[in-house]
């Protein structure tokens, strides 16, 4: 079948003389006679002068040489249309990935950090103020400032979450509203507790402190936790969008298919016309190869950077944040155990549950173990220090829960001296803060690099699509003009 495409007057690689060229052009321009055997001449031109791609293919398959101008028109239309469709699609796909990567680096992670910090600050405020209540009638200025700084930071994080919420879900809005409504009430109950305490009515102050803590633990922290979980899920979703293979692979395969079509078209033209190079199609092919390489390299680089940032930055930071949250809850158990004075062992049980989730421990999957496996550099060093200090904290908390020894418990919970539960807890939290900061820096650097890898790519895709369209149109229309 291939042999039928060979012009009868020429051999491969043979140069045509001037007369032969004129004669050949005359043959090509001459419509083929119906009586001529198939395979000897080009197919007759259609009256309309146009063929569908399918018809062109069928004509080629069925008649051998077929109507060359019609085929040329079909190829021109098909290649230009494919390049246009590809250009639009690939630009959209790149925009999707670039936007998602930018959102990961600049918005989602920031909001996740804000939600996580808000939870921590609320929890820390409660532990700080309940500890101050235990300390007696006069709240030290430093403790009061610590509490107020926590509340101010939580309010700032709430404002960040509110401003970044955009078209948030009903659940997200409900959680935001819950924090907004209960936070001032919590602060009011704390104020009343301190006022009664200062006036000498400690039992009443204690009951207001209990109500404040209930607001914190039953209303504020669940709402803050819900916000964190939702932001975290959103980050996961956007990250998956940024690093997902689907659209980029489709764009690459689509481009490769166009490149293949260009190659076959050039070979076909070469056999038909014996011209070695069709410059228009050659430029289009170069554009395809260039954009294929750019797309593949940029996406691989961005995906690698983003995944590295998530794996070694965001994930361990969230594990450590969770460890910090569990540690605060365990610290709350210590404090509430002394405040409630029920003799109940429920706080001890909850403390132990938190301790086993924080780690280190014999079982795998603790928050510190997960963070240790994922962190790198300063973050990894910080986790090792945190593990050491967590062990020390657990060691000094054992006497805190001994049966109804309130005087001893209070001393342990409040004692500021080196080695006390209070001091050890603060040391652990400081370790966790440093490790989280290091992991967040790792994430930010990687995510920014990943986001930057998409820089200019959308413009490149559009430019390549234009070159493909213009090159195909120019290259094929020149051949087509030879039939007029």
């Amino acid at each position, binding site marked *: 079948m291939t042999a039928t495409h060979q012009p009868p007057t020429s051999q491969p690689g043979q140069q045509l003389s001037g007369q032969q060229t004129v004669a050949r052009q005359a043959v090509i321009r001459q419509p083929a006679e119906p009586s001529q055997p198939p395979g000897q001449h080009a197919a007759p031109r259609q009256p309309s002068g146009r063929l569908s791609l*399918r018809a062109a293919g069928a004509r080629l398959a069925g008649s051998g040489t077929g109507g060359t101008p019609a085929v040329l028109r079909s190829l021109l239309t098909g290649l230009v249309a494919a390049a246009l469709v590809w250009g639009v699609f690939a630009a959209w796909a790149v925009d999707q990935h670039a936007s998602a990567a930018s959102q990961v680096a600049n918005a989602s992670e920031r909001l996740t950090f804000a939600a996580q910090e808000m939870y921590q600050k609320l929890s820390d405020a409660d532990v700080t103020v309940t500890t101050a209540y235990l300390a007696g009638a006069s709240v030290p200025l430093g403790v009061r400032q610590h509490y107020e700084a926590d509340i101010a930071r939580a309010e700032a994080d709430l404002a960040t979450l509110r401003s970044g919420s955009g078209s948030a879900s009903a659940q997200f809005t409900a959680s935001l509203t819950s924090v907004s409504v209960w936070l001032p009430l919590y602060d009011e109950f704390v104020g009343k507790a301190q006022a009664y305490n200062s006036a000498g*009515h400690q039992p*009443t102050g204690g009951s207001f402190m209990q109500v404040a803590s*209930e607001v914190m633990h039953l209303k504020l922290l669940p709402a803050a936790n819900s916000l964190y979980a939702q932001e975290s899920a959103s980050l996961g979703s956007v990250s998956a969008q940024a690093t997902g293979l*689907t659209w980029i*692979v*489709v764009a690459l395969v689509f481009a490769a298919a166009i490149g293949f079509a260009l190659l076959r078209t050039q070979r076909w033209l070469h056999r038909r016309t014996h011209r070695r190079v069709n410059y228009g199609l050659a430029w289009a092919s170069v554009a395809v190869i260039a954009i294929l390489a750019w797309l593949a390299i940029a996406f691989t680089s961005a995906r690698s950077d983003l995944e590295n940032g998530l794996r070694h930055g965001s994930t361990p930071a969230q594990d450590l944040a969770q460890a910090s949250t569990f540690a605060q809850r365990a610290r709350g158990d210590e404090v509430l155990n002394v*405040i409630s004075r*029920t003799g109940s062992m429920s706080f001890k049980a909850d403390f132990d549950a938190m301790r086993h989730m924080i780690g280190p421990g014999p079982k795998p999957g603790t928050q510190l173990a997960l963070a240790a496996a994922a962190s790198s550099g300063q973050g990894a060093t910080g986790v090792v220090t945190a593990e050491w200090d967590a062990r020390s904290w657990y060691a000094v908390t054992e006497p805190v829960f001994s049966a109804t020894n*309130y005087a001893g418990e209070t001393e342990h919970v409040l004692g500021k001296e080196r080695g006390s539960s209070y001091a050890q807890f603060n040391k652990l939290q400081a370790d966790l803060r440093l490790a989280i900061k290091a992991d967040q820096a790792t994430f930010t650097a990687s995510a920014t690099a990943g986001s930057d890898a998409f820089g200019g790519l959308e413009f490149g895709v559009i430019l390549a699509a234009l070159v493909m369209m213009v090159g195909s149109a120019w290259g094929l229309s020149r051949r087509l003009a030879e039939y007029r």
Partner: protein
Amino acid sequence: VALRFRSLLVVTAMAPLALVTACTGGQPVAGQTAAPGAGAGLGSPLNPGGGPVPSSPGSARLTLKESGSTLLFSLFGTWATAYHQQYPNITIKLAPGPLGKGTGSGQGIEDVSTKKANIGASDAFLSSGNLVQHSDLLNIPLAISAQQVNYYLPSLRLPPGKRLQLDGPVLAEMYQGKIKKWNDQAIQALNKGISLPSTPVHPLHRGETTGSGDTFLFTSYLSATDLAWNSQVGFGAAVSWPNIASAQAETGNSGMVTACSVTPGCVAYVGISYLKTAQDAGLGEASLQNFSGNYYQPTPSAISAAVSSFVSDTPADETISMINGPAPNGYPIVNYEYAIVLADQPNPAVARAIKAFLNWVITKGKGNSPSFLNSVQFQPLPPAIVKLADAQISEIK
């Protein structure tokens, strides 16, 4: 070539769709919310007052189980009888406990938490520990109570119009074994003009391992008035009592009264509903020093005065300690008697019956009328507290 070319055109057109079908995957969505009913008693600032409270329990034939405070036991019995007479389809069955006088506040909370009882009776509000385990528990005030401090000194002769006077620091030292005899200088200093006997002091305290609301109230008073007690023993439903030879642990208010009446030199804290029982047993009740330094007996006016200073500050969940309050004419150990219920009931008919019954109990002219409360020396709830209690009742569903 033509066939390949045709195929190429088709593949080029179809590739995006085919790859999308092959590569598309779902994204997990995580989310957490607070437990249903968590902190229901705290109310909703966006919807204060909750929903309506039914005035009748409905037509379903139901038996509601009660368990808890020995102080509330007898009153709950009269409420149960009267309610059954008005609504024969509703029976309220009281858990008698080991002495037939109730199971104790701690056990009542436990029984409601584990759904062995529908309504708990408690002299103390719920602790954070209770709410950590069962965040949908509510404490709803039913009436105002107080606690008296009884003593048994058969040889003591009080001058007319005089009462034995005690304060927090003196009581704390008696319970710590530092004051060993009744004619100790510290007690004498509070009771000028009274000839005190040299009888040894026998401090009685409650011994229930599940905790006692009366112990919570009494130790709160000692902690509020004596720094040494607060730092060394503290307050709570169960505390580590100082280990002194003359101390005795008793079960329930009736156990305290009975033991005190056979132990000359005893000092005991007893709920106000046992005032007449204690008097009949020959026990005296001390006047206690309030925050302003004045001494008061647990009279209706002194109890009401003490409570009134806290009414406007009472939070929505009505968790408030009124021990040693600011009222200059108030008795120092006053409290609400609470019903403990779960906000989330498994059955709407039971929820309705509990709501209607509790509403009946706190309503003036019904369960909160003097005909019920006077027999146990309780005082009716102030209107503002009834309103808050109704808002909490409306959270039961």
